């Protein structure tokens, strides 16, 4: 019997607000332990939560971006459990009335595009961190992260392979970064993921028993954990046993999943509406105001790059991976009107340079306007392609304008026929033996002479003009041998 995997992801997205979701304490990442705390973060007696409206703005943005319905009357609920990093003994979250429901996104994966359902998105507060000091055997609590706003984005069980799950997660991250509501940084934990997975015989509609894998903190781990879990469940099922519903942790070192707790051990969170927070009304006007500020999203921009600029889907997808990159591309295009060249320069030279330097495109030393100018210099034959790469390197190192570099370094392309003729004559003189063979009819020596002439010009000669001059020169010599 063949089985297929049914996968759903729960993504936790940390929001980039200035202050925490229910207090004025800073929501910054890092800091010295317990630097960003206040009475509310500490859960002192008598402290009350006050909702940060920006969090709602961000939740609406995400909801609209993934085609969700936005709930007009929202409630917060308390989720109870005891842990030292949870100061109040409960987390303020949303339970059966989440702010966004019933959305979907398109995920491009393996040459195809599939719609993946978004079941719900809700707002909640993050917990702090427990740090276990093995030296002193002490457990330390850092509450900087406690109360940082989160969106929990729950997909429908529409994903079928680990790679597709990873592609979905990347798309969610990409949208969040376009919206500038989150860094989506998995290393810093501003994007975290739990995966639900079950297997069922191909063709069967009913879902199998699922397991949940917690805290997958890289795209690679999402794939590896799911691959491992699929294999594990498959062997359980093939041996005629049943998969038991449990929560698992992925051990990235060993590459295996381990049981954290079974269904019987699972906590009763005793959710109930938080009486400290009155129901939150979201008027249609609020939603429309947010809608009017939404940037163009990756899907639309990719389509535009194909339809308007004539790029391939492959190129377009690369350029729109990050909003800053798509913006950069459009700015380059604006100044040179050459989409293909802009694409090539960005994806090869610029990406290479940024990669090596460890820079983000938003911190590129080469401005979009300068790159456009460089493309125009090549197009206008002021420099040739080879020189252009040298100029680019200089631009990357110094942030200077390409024209300035060309002038300063005397890299202007030599197109003057008499100058090139002089170089050709010089090359023949320098290589008398080869020249004789060439004149005798060995045309395979032509590239050699092009190289020689270019070398003499220090690369600045127009290669086409050199070719023309060579052909004419040899023709003359063949007709009238010296």
């Amino acid at each position, binding site marked *: 019997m063949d089985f297929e995997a049914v996968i759903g992801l729960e993504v936790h997205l940390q929001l980039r607000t200035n202050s925490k979701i229910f207090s004025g304490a800073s929501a910054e990442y890092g800091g010295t332990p317990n630097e960003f705390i206040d*009475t509310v973060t*500490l*859960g*002192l*007696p*008598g*402290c*009350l*939560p*006050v*909702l940060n409206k920006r969090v709602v703005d961000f939740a609406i943005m995400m909801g609209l971006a993934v085609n969700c319905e936005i709930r007009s009357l929202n409630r917060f609920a*308390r989720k*109870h459990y*005891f842990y*030292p990093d949870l*100061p*109040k*003994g*409960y987390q303020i979250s949303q339970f059966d009335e989440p702010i966004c429901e019933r959305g979907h996104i398109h995920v491009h994966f393996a040459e195809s595009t599939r719609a993946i359902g978004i079941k719900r998105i809700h707002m909640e507060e993050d917990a702090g961190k427990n740090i276990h000091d093995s030296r002193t055997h002490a*457990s330390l*609590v850092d509450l900087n992260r406690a109360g940082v706003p989160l969106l929990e984005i729950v997909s429908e069980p529409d994903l079928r392979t680990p790679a597709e799950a990873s592609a979905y997660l990347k798309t969610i991250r990409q949208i969040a970064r376009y919206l500038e509501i989150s860094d989506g940084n998995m290393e810093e934990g501003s994007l975290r993921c739990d995966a639900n997975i079950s297997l069922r015989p191909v063709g069967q509609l009913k879902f199998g028993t699922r397991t949940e894998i917690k805290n997958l903190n890289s795209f690679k781990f999402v794939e590896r954990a799911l691959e491992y879990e699929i294999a594990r469940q498959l062997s359980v099922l093939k041996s005629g046993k049943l998969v038991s519903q449990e929560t698992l942790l992925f051990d990235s070192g060993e590459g295996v999943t381990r049981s954290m707790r079974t269904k019987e051990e699972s906590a*009763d969170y*005793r*959710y*109930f509406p938080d*009486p*400290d*927070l*009155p129901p939150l009304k979201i008027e249609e006007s609020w939603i429309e105001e947010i809608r009017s500020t939404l940037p163009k999203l990756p899907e639309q921009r990719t389509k535009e790059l194909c339809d308007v600029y004539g790029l391939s889907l492959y190129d377009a997808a690369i350029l729109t991976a990050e909003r800053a990159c798509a913006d950069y591309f459009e700015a380059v295009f604006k100044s040179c009107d050459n989409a293909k060249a802009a694409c090539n320069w960005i994806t090869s030279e610029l990406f290479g340079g940024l990669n090596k330097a460890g820079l983000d495109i938003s911190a590129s030393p080469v401005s979009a306007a300068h790159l456009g100018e460089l493309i125009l210099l090549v197009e206008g034959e002021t420099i040739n392609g080879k020189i252009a790469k040298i100029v680019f390197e200089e631009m990357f190192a110094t942030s200077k304008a390409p024209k300035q570099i060309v002038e300063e370094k005397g890299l202007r392309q030599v197109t003057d026929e008499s100058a090139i003729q002089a170089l050709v004559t010089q090359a023949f003189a320098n290589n008398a033996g080869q020249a004789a063979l060439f004149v005798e009819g060995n045309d395979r020596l032509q590239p050699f002479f092009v190289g020689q002439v270019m070398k003499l010009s220090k690369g600045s000669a127009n290669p086409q003009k050199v070719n023309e001059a060579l052909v004419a020169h040899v023709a003359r010599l063949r007709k009238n041998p010296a």
Partner: protein
Amino acid sequence: MTELHSLGLQELRTGLDNREFSSSELVQALLTRAKSVSKLNCFIDILEDSAKKSASVADQTLGKDHGKPLLGIPIALKDNILSVGSRTTCASRILHNFQSPYDATVTKKLNDSGAIVFGKTNMDEFAMGSSSEASTCGPVCNPWDTSKVPGGSSGGSAAATAASIVPGALGTDTGGSVRQPASLCGIYGIKPTYGRVSRQGVVAFASSLDQVGCFARSAGDLAVLTSALCGHDPLDSTSVPRSDNSFEVPAGANIKGLRIGVPREYFIEGVEPEVESAVRKAIKSLEDQGAQVVDISLPNTHHAVNVYYVIAPAEASSNLARFDGIRYGHRASDCKDLKELYYKSRSEGFGEEVKRRILVGSFVLSTGYYDAYYLRAQKVRTLIAQDFKAAFESQCDLVACPVAPTTAFGIGEKVDDPVSMYLNDVFTIPVNLAGLPGMSVPCGLDSKNLPIGLQLIGKPWDESTLFRVAGAYEHATDWHTKRAPDSSYVDATGSAKDSRRS
């Protein structure tokens, strides 16, 4: 010669502003008074040093145009209201050493009006109780009869005001915890409309029911103190911005034509005949002044106690989860792991009644029982609120009824019978469930010389009508002048005397 401690808030205001006595003299007189009646056990901490210091600061400004209604006047705080510079224990072992780094909004407002925090009053642990017996510091005694309870949970604040240790005090009222002790101690007490007073810095018991209220020995004094507490607080999302946050008892208050609803469900079996007759007499007195008495029905009243004992414990079980021994408060020693730390700290830290409510609350919120208990209780709560709404919309302008079915009961009498204790709040609980303002007004003494209270319940935000009616009633009767006889509780060896400059 009138002794300083026996003066009411407004009399003190006049005396202080006329420089008849200083705030320092007043504080000294009240400290002396407190010592002489210490067997009432009203206080968890008396803040002698800081009160004296604040008094001498106030004395610098007194006599000038200060515009502060409570300048130089000592007020007591129930020990679940946070104030910097003192412990806030909630009469619980789990917070026995807790010092708050911030002031409650009401504490701040009191300070802003010039009041001096005199001390933190004894109470039922975490405000859970109706007798002020469930305290790590021992029971509070009723000044009218020290073998009786003062009511609760704000019993310390009520007894301290009734025994003239302070001219006024703050309490909290979740199911009657201000009105019932006010009634049992023969003084005035108010629970304002839910949302009128900030809950920020008040240790939460049941957030959707909790409201800060206060005690005083006259309606006018109560109005002054209430006005100092009210106002929108951006730090409490359930606090409501209002423009009518100042109250007074108008001289010669006119209640002609006012329709007073008398709910038949509040005169039932279990109400002591002497209580019923005193309350009916009080209502008659209002009728004599031109009010119109209307027989009304609040048919869901009998569900109120049941509903309350689902909702309040549910919220309490959640609100008290933060007392885990990790960041502050009592932490058990010698624990081998985290689980044991939680178990032991909470087992040692909480008293019996608190544990009982945490257990009930956890149960009614748990999966499989939530719908049957919590959700159902919320629905019935809505019905109880609708009863009042319907009555106010078509029949009456306010409701008058007993505060409690009985006068003060004996210390120890009900500690082993929680349900009978709960039933003492049968007439106060519906007011919290509906979020309405309620006031307790002294209206008689029973044959054992124990006070009886009349409860006035207003429309939402209509505290001013309650003050008007209380003023009219006060004008027509002299129950508000009755004080517990000093002989019943003043320590014979201690000096209850203080001096007044004349």
